[in-house]
């Protein structure tokens, strides 16, 4: 089952659902929910598509519906309805729970795993070996690849996504996430706000997983990050980060069925 493709001139219940979702996500505008895909809805769709790094053609096809299913309610009002929408469960959140199990995993120095089975598994999760050995290089992207692999292999909500095997932050963001139809949005997005289980890419070459969000402060779990007293990354640790050093967020895409079900759930609560 998939959502109907909608474009300017369309009418009906699907358009109402679309308008509700756009209203829920958009902090700045409010569409009349009349089931009529007119110029205001077209404009809102294009803005949404731009924000989700999609082609802004105003046509609501599978990719736009997928992005709509991944949106986070903006919280522009404090009504009980919005609070209810905020409680819609997110399958991506499990990613942070997986990452948290590895807090404390530490290298022996110079990015070496030593006898740590966990860290060796992290290094083995990417496709990189250097001079015949699997460790010895910065491993924050390997840690995120490892956690995402574990999630994708165990959750039916993501069965269409090929697990990442990236050792590089650039490749994770620009190759794997884009090719996998992940939702990628900047820190100052008008439509999307970070949530538990998002992947966070910093303005420098570093990547982690969002555990919780409190205003501008983001609690993350990161591999190869600084521990108290260390100058360079060495450990899986929980960190509190300010939004200003974050370049973008990556949200894992759902299967079509999970996407449709989430849209219905959010629309029902709007």
């Amino acid at each position, binding site marked *: 089952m998939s959502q109907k493709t909608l474009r300017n001139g369309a009418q009906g219940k699907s358009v109402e659902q679309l308008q509700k979702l756009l209203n829920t996500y958009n902090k700045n505008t409010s569409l009349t929910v009349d089931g009529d895909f007119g110029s205001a809805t077209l404009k809102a769709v294009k803005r949404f598509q731009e924000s989700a790094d999609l082609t802004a053609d105003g046509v609501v096809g599978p990719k736009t519906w997928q992005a709509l299913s991944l949106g986070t309610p903006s919280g522009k009002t404090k009504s009980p309805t919005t609070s209810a929408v905020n409680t819609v469960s997110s399958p991506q959140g499990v990613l942070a729970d997986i990452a948290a199990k590895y807090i404390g995993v530490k290298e022996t120095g110079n990015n070496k795993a030593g006898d740590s089975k966990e860290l060796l598994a992290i290094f083995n999760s990417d496709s990189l070996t250097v001079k015949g050995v699997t460790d010895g290089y910065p491993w924050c992207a390997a840690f995120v690849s490892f956690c995402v692999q574990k999630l994708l292999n165990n959750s039916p909500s993501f069965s269409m996504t090929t697990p990442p095997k990236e050792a*590089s932050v650039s490749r994770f963001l620009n190759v794997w996430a884009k090719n996998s139809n992940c939702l990628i949005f900047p820190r100052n997005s008008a439509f999307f706000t970070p949530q538990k289980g998002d992947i966070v890419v910093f*303005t420098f*070459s570093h990547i982690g997983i969002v555990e919780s969000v409190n205003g501008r402060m983001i609690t993350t779990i990161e591999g190869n990050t600084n521990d108290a007293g260390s100058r360079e*990354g060495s450990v899986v640790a929980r960190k509190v980060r300010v939004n200003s*050093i974050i370049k973008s967020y990556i949200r894992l895409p759902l299967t079509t069925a999970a996407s449709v079900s989430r849209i219905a759930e959010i629309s029902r609560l709007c």
Partner: protein
Amino acid sequence: MTNINKKSLLYVAVFLLGGCLNEQNIAGEINNPATKSPTQTCNIPADAFSKLPTEVLDGTDVADLGSFKPTDISGIHFHTEIGGANIEIDAQALNGLYKIQRIYKEPDLEKIVTNYNNLCVKEGRLYGENVRGIFTEKGILWLELKSGHEFISPDLWIYLEQN
């Protein structure tokens, strides 16, 4: 007579313009080959270090610029690891100016080497049109204003330790 005067004026203008351009080259940069001319002096504009970021990337943490103590030039080879990449800086003195090679290396990707030439180092500070440096006791604070690289931000100094 009028023609001769016009010609003279033109020569004077070209000469002066050449002088101005040379002055700019003193602190020019990317891929300008360092000249083999006699030792050159360098000047750092008075406002070169104003309106710059106040935060420093130290490993994967962000620290306040004020927590670093500037000193005179402390070394020529520096490095850091920033979570997902290694960055190295090698400085080389040439005719009173400096050449810096910055190497950026992410696992599984080709390393990126960028050269900055004709940089001015004075009183523990390094200046080029689009780069700044502040030497500290154990390293250097490095800032690229137009790196052209998505993970070398103009909003953060990067602290590299001496090798």
